[in-house]
């Protein structure tokens, strides 16, 4: 990553955050399988599947879980293309690269030899690399699905009804809400800096720009927190946190929950 585009790539990260949020909102409104279930069931169910993926030691069972996940994705009207670009290719590149040396480094029974490099790939190395990549892919697909199909506020409320302390849930909610405001502020600062740039800045200047933006952002953040505190007080906040719980379990939710637990349990048992 070259330096003259450091602002550029930061700005891209900001835009990426917003577009992810928008995509989430769009998918969460589709009439799909996951969307039909109570958010608590979704959260517990998907997390149960993630846990069973991690517990599993058999490649075939993990692969079956991945297939199940893809089927859930299709049933929930999530575009496989977006999953591929957002999750699968990214992980293949990142974890794939990390797993690659394992093919050669892990000692064991050689499976085949690369004649040109005279490196032998061991069966154990192959298995360990596959396990790693497959696990990471499946777990990431599950969490991405959960996030795409569930509005953030529902995830929070689900966590609350799973006994997460009210203050923590409030902090998570408030942080999320203000992330976007701060991104916008930082965005504006960087954009105005970029438009004033004439030619390439020396490294130390670039670092100053970054640090200064971060500094201004911090000051604004603290000031914002003071004001928000006053706004909270003004509406009656006196230390306790009260949240509205309006989830009700229906038959399909119980069925869904049972399905998740069964699949997860079966996978964990078979893959032990």
């Amino acid at each position, binding site marked *: 990553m070259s330096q003259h585009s450091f602002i550029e790539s930061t700005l891209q990260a900001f835009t990426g955050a917003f577009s992810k949020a928008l995509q989430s909102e769009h998918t969460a409104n589709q009439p799909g399988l996951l969307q039909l279930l109570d958010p608590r069931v979704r959260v517990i169910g998907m997390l149960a599947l993630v*846990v069973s993926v991690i517990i599993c030691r058999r490649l075939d069972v993990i692969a079956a879980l991945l297939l199940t996940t893809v089927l859930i994705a299709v049933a929930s009207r999530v575009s496989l293309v977006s999953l591929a670009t957002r999750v699968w290719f990214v992980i293949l590149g990142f974890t794939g690269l990390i797993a690659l040396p394992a093919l050669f480094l892990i000692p064991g029974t050689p499976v085949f030899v690369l004649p040109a490099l005279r490196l032998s790939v061991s069966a154990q190395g192959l298995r360990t690399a596959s396990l790693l990549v497959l696990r990471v892919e499946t777990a990431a697909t599950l969490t991405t699905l959960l996030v795409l199909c569930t509005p953030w506020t529902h995830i929070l409320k689900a966590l609350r009804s799973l006994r997460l302390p009210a203050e923590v849930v409030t902090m998570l909610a408030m942080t999320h809400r203000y992330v976007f405001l701060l991104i916008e502020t930082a965005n504006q600062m960087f954009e105005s800096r970029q438009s004033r740039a004439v030619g390439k800045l020396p490294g130390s200047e670039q670092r100053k720009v*970054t*640090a200064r933006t971060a500094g201004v952002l911090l000051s604004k953040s603290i000031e914002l927190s003071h004001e928000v505190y006053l706004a909270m007080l003004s509406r009656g906040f006196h230390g306790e946190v009260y949240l509205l719980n309006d989830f009700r379990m229906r038959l399909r939710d119980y069925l869904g929950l049972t399905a998740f637990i069964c699949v997860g349990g079966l996978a964990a048992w078979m893959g032990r």
Partner: protein
Amino acid sequence: MHIPDGYLSPSTCATLYAFAATGWYSALKRIKRMLATRAIPLISVLAAFSFVVMMFNVPLPGGTTGHAVGVTVAAIVLGPWGSILAISIALAIQALFFGDGGITTLGANCFNMAVVGSFVACGVYRLAAARSGIRSRRRVLAAAIAGYVSINAAAFVTALEFGIQPTLFHDGSGTPLYAPYPLHVAVPAMMLGHLTLAGLAEAVISAGMVSYLQRADLGLLGEAGNLATGSAPIPAMVNNGRSLRRLWWAVALLLVCTPIGILAAGTAWGEWSSADLMNAKTRAQIEAASGNHAPPVSVPTGLQKLSTVWTAPFPGYAPRFIKSPAFGYSLSAMFGAGLLVVVSLTARVIGRRPNARNPRP
């Protein structure tokens, strides 16, 4: 440094979640006591801030860029406990909302970056800044060093977590089940990237921000630091308990490292049981380790009698129901440390004088 799901075994994840949860619980209590109602908006907005800073591409010397975590700034401004909460929340949002970093590994990530990172950053900053003036250049340097060291400390702990995976969790044929690289590969591999890039990025951001705050907003840095005007001083700047915190951190680090003990083969000199003294093979080992003096032919009667008095709950550091000796080892270490903690906390509570200082917000 964000660990995705799948790199750490379930037991590692669970253990690290437990460590992180201890950190969260303590931090929550302290912050509520220090800041009362102001904590919620303050921690939230600072978590949002650190989240956004994590997105910055920081230009580094040499023409590259890196990413900072912002834990050093959070630790300087909020103190270690506030920083633990703020960074953990930012990490949770990254994982839950943006899919960056795993869910099962959230505990690990929070422990590495939020807990270890915060304490190291705080400790190093205070050590390096010592009694220098609030506007001095030394503070800027202290922030840079604190940033660099804290990120690398976090990276080191992460590397340890990776590195013990193949030793502890592999199947019969020797295939590692999770992160595949042993310590001697994982540690250098992880440290390389952080000693060069991430550590520098953190140092740049931390130093830059302290420098900016020195000119623009002293209140955030001050020893009497009042973040919300008129309220109690920030936890960071209250010095009592500092050495205790360091002790906690050291204990935690040691706990993580205990499985290394498995690598030492055999039995420690002098720690033989009566069974060892009767077995021909171990007798030969004992003789070799004792400068070729043969052990006594029969087991001394004293040893025989006393060895039946007490049977430890975890003989050989491995509870009977745990199959893997290595995991049993770590579990025992945790249990032992946990027991010590409980005992010492109890002693502290008993010994505490009534009407302890409790500043009203």
